[in-house]
């Protein structure tokens, strides 16, 4: 029988025990203080942190909070710090950790909600508005008419940058963001790069300069490359930040 969450398997193999240590804190409740809690569980084949945390929640501690939605690396909900590195928990397999010890912390730079849960939605919405993360075109489109042709390679290039899932990992891995609250980060700069190469968007370099031509934008980046090193979608963030900076320096 298949059991996708608990991954119970029918044969009776012996599995190793792993220890998952979780940062626990509920800012809503003034009686609690931050602490670590360790859970010991059996590691089933193919176990991910999603499977492990669901197991902890449903069988060991019903009160633990975390954020999963798609559990397939597509929605960007479950970013957290895993043994010191920001990662998508659903795509992290427990077998990677040889000593079987895993420590989980909430993603820094976002408002903490409880335990491993943080508020990414409001920050990302504000960032999207700040960089005007949409097509700017003067003419209205007649949606009954044949669409405007786009070179296949250009569409593909735009798609590659549009793959960003706004998981927040690039921000958690960024020293500028930790120092500067309003820095739009690689996620925001990548969005501008995406629209800058989109033939539907009529914004000029001057227009982009208005949005990101300062220390909270493209000049805040110190090129430490934490964003690109940790991006779960392998986006070419440094190249794209450099691309926008070159454009902006010319202004």
């Amino acid at each position, binding site marked *: *029988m*298949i*059991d*996708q969450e608990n991954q119970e398997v*029918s044969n009776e193999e012996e599995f190793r025990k792993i220890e998952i240590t979780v940062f626990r804190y*509920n800012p*809503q*409740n003034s009686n609690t203080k931050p602490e670590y809690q360790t859970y010991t569980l059996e590691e089933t*084949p*193919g176990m991910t942190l999603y499977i492990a945390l669901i197991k902890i929640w*449903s069988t060991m501690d*019903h*009160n*633990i*909070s975390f954020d*999963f*939605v*798609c*559990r*397939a*690396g*597509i*929605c*960007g*909900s479950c970013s957290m710090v895993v043994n010191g590195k920001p990662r998508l928990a659903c795509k992290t397999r427990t077998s990677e950790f040889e000593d079987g010890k895993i420590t989980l912390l909430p993603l820094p730079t976002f408002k903490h*909600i*409880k335990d491993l849960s943080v*508020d990414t*939605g*409001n920050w*990302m*919405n504000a960032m*999207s*508005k700040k960089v*005007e*993360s*949409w097509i700017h*075109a003067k003419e209205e*489109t007649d*949606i*009954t*008419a*044949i*669409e*405007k*042709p*786009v*070179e*296949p390679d250009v*569409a*593909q290039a*735009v*798609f590659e940058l*549009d793959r960003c*899932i*706004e998981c927040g990992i690039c921000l958690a891995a960024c020293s500028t963001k930790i120092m500067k609250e309003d820095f739009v980060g690689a996620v925001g700069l990548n969005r501008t790069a995406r*629209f800058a190469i*989109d033939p*539907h*968007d009529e914004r000029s370099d001057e227009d982009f300069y208005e949005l990101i031509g300062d220390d909270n934008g493209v000049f805040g980046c110190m090129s430490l490359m934490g964003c690109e090193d940790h991006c779960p979608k392998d986006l070419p963030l440094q190249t794209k930040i450099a691309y926008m900076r070159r454009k902006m320096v010319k202004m």
Partner: protein
Amino acid sequence: MKIVYTDALIVGGGLAGLRSAIATREKGLDTIVISMVPVKRSHSAAAQGGMQASLGNAVMGEGDNEDVHFADTVKGSDWGCDQNVARMFVTTAPKAIRELAAWGVPWNRIGKGPREVIINGEKETIVEKDEAHGLINARDFGGTKKWRTCYTSDATGHTMLYAVANEALRRNVEIHDKKEAISIIHENGICGGVVARDLISGELIAYIAKGTMIATGGYGRIYKQSTNAIICKGVGVAIALETGIVQLGNMEAVQFHPTPIVPSGILLTEGCRGDGGVLRDKDGYRFMPDYEPEKKELASRDVVSRRMIEHIRKGKGVKSPYGDHLWLDISILGREHIEKNLHDVQDISKTFNGIDPADEGEKGWMPVLPMQHYSMGGIRVKPTGESTTMKGLFCSGEAACWDLHGFNRLGGNSVSEAVVAGMIVGEYFASYCKETHLTTNTFTIQKFLEVQKAYLQEILSYDGGKNIFDIKDRMRIIMQEKVGVFRNGKDLSDAVDELEDLLKMVKEITVTDKALCINPELNEAYRVTKMLKLALCVSKGALERTESRGAHFREDYTKRDDENWLNRTITTWTDPNDTMPTLSYEEIDISKMEMPPAFRGYGKKGAIMSNPLSEIREEEITKIKETLGKVDRFTTQEALLDFDLPKEYKRKNERMGVGYD
């Protein structure tokens, strides 16, 4: 008492909800979207393979138009859909895709000249026309006559959702995330808004609006194995049911997708087979052509899923610690194609199974098995999207039984429905909000808030020692084992009984943490109660429906019975103390059909008990066509079925080579 007033309230921030929010903002209405999760995390993002729209740009889509898309959709639905709605949909879909293109969705574009593709397991060269260069491309999908599914690699839902969400932000749609609607406020049969719970502070908020729309998606999580995101619990549909007034339609119509990966249940898009991938058994043998000589791997999803289980039952499944499965082989498409067009599939397979599907031969085969994927059923609405029985309550997308999909949805028609319904229903919804005044009495609002407050307290006071997680697990196993791909009277009857017991058992749980603020166990307690009600609607509907239609297959009634069962199951929950839904049926009128019931062209032959009215309508159609003489296709269509649409969407669609014809 916290009350938030707005013009238009939308519950659910996926494609359908956000596109509707754009429609209400365009009419100048204040609009709030409430969502359990940040809207860009909605399950729409997980749609992979693409969106159907009959553009007819690609050479393999040549000759495509609304009529062909309509016929495919009706056949796919096994004649269960509302043909009026199907017409509204196919007419608007090309406009939706062009609107999205203008909003920046980077649709894959056609390159002129020859290119190599895999068709029926063989390499073939097709040549794209010069004038098609740069226009929106399409891939093949199941149950379609033409290549009609437009895509951005295998992340189509993601790019669509981001474009629509950002357009909503641009129009200052107010987004309140981490809020969950837990009850619908209504008075004199009119919807006044919802009671929502702040999932962080636990505060109850009354959102009061001129019109309310539910766009909360499906309820796949009532099944143990589902491709659905873990938020797809159907709470939005359940709170509509709990009004006692709102009707749900065709809840037993549940789609099982042929190729989720084993064991995680994460979807591998139909685009895998659309692009030429094949299914293999334990001997590496490609078995689908034996069962479905014409459509092979690309018959509709219900048919392919059944054939796969049939084949496993013959002992041809691959043994694994997780049970038997089959193989999906896309290695034949070549590494370059996979890395460009099936990028996420490759990523999923590598991450969760350690298999690189681009590796040649057996090494690259991915283990797959049919699992729950889509809810055709939902809140029963009129073609305008308004509830059939509650004024001011609208519904769009997967949460609705509009009814575009009948008993089986075609691949590529779901994200397409989400945005198209967002446009059409969004427009009707906006007009309604524009013309309506707030009428809900504050006393009523307070009453609804108090009922919910008392209900949450009641849950916390239960002290029977049972565990809500065990009840949930049991429900999901029952649905999996007894209300699955193949169904029979005995199992369904057992399922109904056991689910009823589980629903009663909820009062015997104990919630360990008594906090009203952020408390994931309390969330689960009320959500599972709602899920159990939906599970009962599904299984009871399936038990009573003694025929096989689309995804609903009865081993004890294997034929589609048009004489007795060409109808829609209507479910209500008439009294809050009931432990069983009330069923009734809504007839589907053959005499008004543009396409009367016939054989679908795939699936088992001779498995139809026809209705004599089908033949009569067929003759009538022939006569109407003769009387009309030589006229264009639009005139013929209108004579057979006249449908309404907002004016802007009724306009004709231009296509390459044929203009607006």
